[in-house]
């Protein structure tokens, strides 16, 4: 029997008319875990895409907009899921334990949400890179795994400097904001760009990357993340 990717319990498939007549949709989570996934719906912050009751900008984005250097570099971010403890667990299994196939759990939602927010496809996709060292250790780049589902041309226009190898998730907000830009531009694009990453926490990583691309002449820089 197939095991749930999150809780390792067996997945029971009820027989219904739809899966009796049509080829079954492959499932990777059991029903219980499936319910724990929290999609971001309609009410969002216009800028960073976080779930929000009403209003247009969240307080984080108001601060970002006032920033002299980074205020205008990013047009908008859109994300698929909210950052719940369950999501944190799934992403840890995906990235840190290295269970690449976890992308299958996210795939249907990523495809749907991306199409909803970015319907016209002229932009190029730029996944946020890892350092070479970390890429070797993990054997895959999670941002690239997401990017491959988006059906737009992927441009690896960024590289990460080796010195900044400390994991973002281990830094405090203040440390992240004060840190120097960890990326370098490896290619000129001169076209609209959608940055892709697994998670938007403070937004520092995305803003660093967006700044480089915008300064280089990209007309518009948006971003798309799995989690906000």
């Amino acid at each position: 029997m197939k095991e749930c990717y999150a809780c390792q319990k067996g997945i029971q498939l009820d027989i219904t008319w739809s899966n009796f007549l049509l080829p079954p949709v492959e499932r990777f989570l059991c029903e219980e875990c499936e319910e724990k996934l929290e999609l971001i719906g309609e009410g969002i912050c216009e800028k960073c895409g976080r779930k929000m009751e009403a209003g247009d900008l969240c307080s984080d984005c108001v601060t970002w907009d006032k920033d002299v250097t980074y205020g205008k570099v990013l047009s908008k971010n859109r994300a698929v899921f909210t950052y719940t403890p369950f999501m944190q667990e799934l992403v840890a299994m995906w990235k840190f334990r290295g269970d690449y196939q976890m992308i299958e759990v996210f795939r249907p939602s990523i495809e749907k949400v991306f199409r909803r927010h970015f319907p016209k496809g002229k932009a190029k996709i730029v996944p946020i890179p890892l350092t070479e060292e970390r890429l070797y250790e993990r054997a895959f780049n999670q941002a690239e795994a997401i990017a491959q589902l988006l059906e737009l041309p992927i441009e690896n226009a960024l590289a990460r400097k080796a010195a900044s190898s400390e994991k973002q998730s281990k830094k405090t907000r203040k440390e992240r904001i004060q840190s120097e830009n960890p990326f370098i531009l490896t290619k000129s694009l001169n076209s609209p760009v959608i940055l892709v990453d697994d998670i938007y926490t403070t937004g520092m990583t995305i803003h660093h990357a967006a700044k480089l691309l915008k300064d280089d002449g990209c007309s518009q820089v948006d971003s798309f993340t799995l989690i906000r």
Partner: protein
Amino acid sequence: MNPKSLKGKLLLRNEINLSDESIQQLLQSNQLTTIPAITKHTFHYQCNRCMTTKREHFAMIPCARCHTTHPYCRNCLRTGRVLFCEKLYLWAGHDAAWPEQLNPCHWEGSLTRHQLQAAEAIQKAATLTGQELLIWAVCGAGKTEMLFPGITTAIKEGKSICLATPRADVVRELYPRFQEAFPNTEIEALYGGTEERTGTGQLVIATTHQLIRYHQAFDLMIIDELDAFPYHTDKDLHKLSQRAKKSHATTIYLTATPRKKEQRRIEANQLPVIFVPIRFHGHPLPVPKLQLDISLQKKLKQSKLPESITTFIQSRAPKRQFLLFVPTVEMLPQMEEMLKGFSLTFTTVHAEDPERKEKVNAYRNQEYDLLITTTILERGVTFPSIDVVILDAGHEVFDEAAIVQIAGRAGRSPQDPTGEVLLIHQGKTNAIVNAVRQIKQMNEKGSKL
């Protein structure tokens, strides 16, 4: 990292904390060899670390190391991901040499006549090679103490010893007892999340899964609770324990409730057995009392406390602690809610509980009157003086072995050798009937000695 800790091991590159140069040196001097981590067969893959061949355990990854798309093992993820393009590093040098000890055992207790009989058989098997021996001893027979003479002999002979048990709780309980008994021997306790992992223990007390890192390492392999989940259902774990011992190793099995497979081998004279039907304090096993409640399921659904539990709580000896076993994790919060009205201190524990270790210790220190638990505490753990209640004993998780084991938690102390075992059920199952019969049979055998 101490290169000594590579002896008898089978490791991933990132589990070896040595430079590439040092590893090259060890490879060139034939102290290490490598094998492919995953082998491709005609119709399936095999992970050479966890030994799985199940199709659902392999998934594909577009690998950034070798730039091809190839399988990796999902069964190994908890102990470290294994990629198809990786190698496993295998110790091929000399066996570990242990410090000579003339008198390794500092345990000063004594064994009963029946314990001694089993202990001597273990001791004899430990000096020989390639032996197999099953010790069939009732719960509370004092299995741990019976092992001491055999382990003493093995240490004197400079052998490497492994005591494999299915549960982390048991490892944590056994470790201090062995440390006390063998103070000058390097002992390692391994379970998922162990803090200390020297890799150089002469006596390794480990959960079976931890054997994933061993290869031809042990001269004496002791498999505790042979019949317990997950060992008895998982063929890959058998392969792991086979691989971890040397080809000429002696294997001792311990169990209170052998499964059909072992019972058949015993009957066919293929497996030597020593029977210890009496507890170390000489008192019989408590026989479970059955309490029928014909509307049990309905009450549980409506979150009503069955009267039999109320009666039990009101009539029990006030100083006595008790364990309440429930079939599922989901029932724990429900029970907690239902028992709020009583003047009892209690908590709940289950396998994934982050405070599991602390809660079990607190209960042992008598900080709670009651511990509500799933079957994780069915075996191995010893609380000196408790009663036991199984709620919904007819549930499928309570098979014959589980009920015998749970009943065996009661009356473990010589000062308080009786204990009450209450099974609340909605209709007897075969498991309940057989378990009670088995306990009565053992008591009969024991009384004839």
